[in-house]
């Protein structure tokens, strides 16, 4: 088994369980990618170290790839030869999702891949050349960056004939705010606050992934109660987002009743969250060492009661969605992403599982408390809007079940532990299954409690290109519905 030799050479990396790291040259860099692909693995992230400017970086340039295979997560570090300029072999032919990651890595660090598509991605200084579709009756519809609803900015360029979409090209990067550079200005024990704001709807997933990396680097295991409470927060975040999406999806299918009911349930859950943790959205609750505040037995019971009530109503509403012919008609067969295509594109998370890609970090590489409270993975195979709706119903139900178990079985003890500053140069990786999919944080410590480098990676990187495929052949008016069924993050990929 060719993959075996890389695993044998790799050294353990601290942070998430089953992560190993490996330094390679250009030839091996390509071979690792081919071997991972041949073994059915996926690309989690690709990033480059160092800003393009800054003297410190000259001798520290490196490109990183993180893959997941059956054995765990393999982080590969490619260091350049001394002579400049340096072009490293791109892996976009092996993992198509790598293309935009490589273009962004170039914008941020100057490391250029061999991909002939050299259009900048995050850097918007120059006009952007869209791929033109020619033919009789073909015209373009340009949408954004400011959209018609309360959503994030991005630009979509549709090439259409009549109402049928021939091609969609996305242009993102509008919310690029220099996150990676901002990380390097923060003390490493404060970085979780910025991590929570990479994509605000996944605050728990990001701050947990950041803390997981940091705690590993400091050699600190968090108390069992802290791990359980973090899982409570993560499942609350998943449930709240799924409820919001289920309402919005009903609305986009012309069923306003769905939005009214699900937005009410989401508000009930947010108010219960605020009563339990002092905030509606769980920013700054996951901190290095554990949780910022504890949960009393009484508060845990009250929270569990609301979760049970919300989940019971969700079951009723699922019945109504399923029986509504108009809704069923709009959902079924719309925006189909076939399992084979999803596999080829390396689609991850909820959208991946809706197309038969059965991967979930909580199941595949579980960390505490998911080792003790096992997750039942929800998988659908249709790949259409209906499947992504069914995924949300299924996962909302499963999160409700997990929350009930977690809240009734919270271990006693401390809810946080002291975490020291990691040594200069220490490297760690955090990996948490957020509601959208796997969130990865790669963290490297600098001298005296500083951050040398932090790359937060959103699952939307892998899934945005898949949306371009899912819309093909559908009609323009179905785009909002299909887009909502993916519900990807802009901020998370714009960095």
């Amino acid at each position, binding site marked *: 088994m060719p993959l075996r030799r890389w695993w044998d050479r790799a050294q353990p990396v601290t942070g998430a369980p089953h992560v190993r790291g490996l330094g390679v040259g250009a030839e091996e860099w390509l071979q690792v990618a081919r071997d991972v692909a041949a073994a059915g693995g996926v690309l989690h992230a690709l990033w480059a170290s160092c800003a393009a400017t800054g003297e410190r970086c000259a001798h520290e340039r490196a490109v990183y790839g993180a893959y997941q295979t059956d054995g765990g997560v393999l982080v590969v570090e490619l260091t350049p030869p001394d002579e400049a300029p340096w072009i490293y072999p791109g892996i976009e032919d092996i993992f198509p999702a790598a293309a935009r990651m490589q273009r962004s890595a170039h914008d941020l660090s100057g490391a250029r891949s061999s991909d002939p598509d050299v259009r900048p991605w995050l850097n918007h200084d120059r006009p952007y050349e869209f791929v033109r579709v020619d033919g009789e009756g073909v015209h373009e519809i340009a949408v954004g960056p400011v959209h018609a609803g309360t*959503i994030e*900015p991005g630009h979509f360029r549709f090439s259409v004939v009549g109402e049928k979409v021939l091609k969609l090209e996305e242009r993102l990067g509008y*919310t*690029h*705010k*220099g996150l990676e550079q901002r990380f390097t200005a923060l003390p490493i024990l404060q970085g979780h606050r910025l991590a929570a704001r990479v*994509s605000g709807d996944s605050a728990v997933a990001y701050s947990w992934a950041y803390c997981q990396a940091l705690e590993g680097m400091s050699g600190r295991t968090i108390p069992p109660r802290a791990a359980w409470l973090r899982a409570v927060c993560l499942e609350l975040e998943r449930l709240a987002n799924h409820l919001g999406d289920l309402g919005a999806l009903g609305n986009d299918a012309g069923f306003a*009743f769905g939005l009214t009911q699900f937005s009410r349930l989401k508000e009930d859950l947010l108010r219960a969250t605020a009563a339990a943790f002092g905030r509606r959205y769980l920013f700054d609750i996951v901190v290095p060492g554990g949780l910022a505040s504890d949960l009393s037995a009484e508060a845990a019971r009250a929270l569990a009661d609301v979760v049970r009530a919300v989940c019971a109503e969700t079951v009723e509403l699922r019945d109504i969605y399923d029986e509504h012919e108009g809704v069923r008609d709009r959902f079924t067969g719309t925006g189909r992403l076939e399992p084979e295509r999803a596999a080829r594109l390396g689609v991850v998370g909820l959208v991946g599982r809706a197309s038969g890609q059965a991967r979930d970090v909580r199941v595949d590489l579980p960390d505490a408390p998911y080792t003790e409270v096992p997750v039942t993975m929800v998988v659908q195979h249709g790949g259409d809007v209906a499947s992504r709706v069914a995924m949300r119903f299924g996962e909302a139900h499963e999160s409700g079940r997990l929350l009930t178990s977690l809240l009734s079985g919270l271990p006693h003890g401390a809810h946080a532990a002291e975490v020291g500053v990691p040594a200069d140069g220490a490297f760690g990786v955090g990996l948490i299954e957020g509601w959208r999919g796997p969130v990865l944080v790669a963290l490297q410590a600098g001298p005296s409690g500083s951050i040398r480098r932090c790359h937060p990676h959103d699952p939307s990187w892998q899934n945005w290109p898949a949306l371009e495929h899912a819309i093909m052949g559908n009609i323009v008016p179905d785009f909002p519905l299909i887009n909502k069924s993916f519900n990807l993050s802009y901020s998370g990929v714009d960095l």
Partner: protein
Amino acid sequence: MLKTLRKIASVGLISEPAPAPDELLRVRRAADATIAAVLGRALCIRHVDAGSCNGCELEIQALGNPYYNLEGHNIRFVASPRHADLLLVTGPVVRNMETALRRTYAATPDPKRVVAVGDCGCAGGILGECPASLGRVANVIPVDVEVPGCPPSPARILQGILTAIQG
């Protein structure tokens, strides 16, 4: 159909009263202090995300749920700045959104008001000013009301909107 109707009937009316305006949120008094007279009781809002983390968007979306019942207060979100009376701006203004924000502001007819939502929009937030970000909204367009918070609650955002149209 029966299940749907039964659900509507069993939930009933749950809307809460609107909060009172809070003059402490006002950062600037517009010269044309007549907006309420011009608009009467109807208000159209255009939301612009100028670079937020999407946390504030979640709370703005919550304004539409039956508890806050925004449309019950004669306020609604519109798809174009040309139809809007008020801009609700989130995020620090990042460089890649500066032009879009300026154009949206220019396309909004006078008299208009601007409400900056969230710590980033009010003061730059954790991101502050950097090569990729210009910081607070007031650094780019005139702002009438600032609603701090990370993210601010829906009730607080509604309070900011109601304050803006008082003056």
